[in-house]
């Protein structure tokens, strides 16, 4: 089991890494959408879940989501938005673009772990 976290904040990536470690899930990380697309290419899309920030420099999370979902190689990978954009309009836009789940920042470690388990279909 492996997840890809895409977030420009190294602090948030550390928090996600700690949660993934607790759940014994391997991680890959990228700082923005473009870096994440390059990484996916390099690892041949071999991740089981993508955790995706919205506000990032370079390619933002929404644009990355659209790119991934229209790409036949990666479109099947579930994407969970992990973002401070918590309004209904943003959630609807992300779900329409193909996001499978949504977690609003700030979150506690417990909330994050529960959401990851929900996405990967475990029993927590």
């Amino acid at each position, binding site marked *: 089991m492996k997840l890809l976290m895409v977030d420009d*904040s*190294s*602090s*948030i990536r*550390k*928090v996600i890494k*700690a949660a993934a470690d607790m759940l014994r899930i391997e991680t890959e990380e990228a700082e923005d959408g473009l870096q994440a697309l390059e990484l996916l290419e390099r690892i041949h899309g071999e991740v089981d879940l993508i955790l995706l920030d919205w*506000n990032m*420099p370079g390619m933002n999370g929404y644009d990355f989501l659209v790119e991934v979902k229209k790409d036949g190689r990666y479109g099947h990978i579930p994407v969970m938005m992990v*973002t*401070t*954009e*918590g*309004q209904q*309009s943003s959630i609807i836009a992300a779900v329409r673009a193909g996001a499978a789940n949504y977690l*609003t*920042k*700030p*979150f*506690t470690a417990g909330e994050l772990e529960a959401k990851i388990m929900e996405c990967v279909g475990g029993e927590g």
Partner: protein
Amino acid sequence: MGDMGDGGRAGQVRDDPVMGYVADAFLGSLAEVVSAATGLTFAALEGGVHRVGEGMVGAMGLYGGNRGILLISAEEADLRLLSSRMTGTPPGDVTDADMGDTLCEIVNMTAGGAKLRLSGEEDAFTLSMPFIITGQAMDVSFKGRAGVVAGRLGDGEASLSLRVMFH
């Protein structure tokens, strides 16, 4: 209006119901962010906010319907503690870059939470990328009819000052 060198006081804000509502949204959001990210319970502190330029300042331009700037500042020792608690890094291993990143993300999450609290049919404002200001006791001036929100939150161990200025 504009000289924020003395750090606006929350008491001034409370006299204006609209700015009081805005203050509650931003300060409430900041308290929630700190609690979720670090486990610390921050409450309103008496006394003025940090001057801009004391310690590190995280900033974000707010655009859209309401335009302005959000500033959150803290002393280095306090930021070290917050970053350590958020990321699980031992305090001695927290770098300046780590502190800056943690402060930027606190700014980002605080703005997002305040936006959620203030938005109705229309978004209250649009977020932009947070950035860090460091330097010596600078004053911040702002053009236009600046609505100002300021307050300081903390517990026994650390504190953060928040300032929002709207055109």
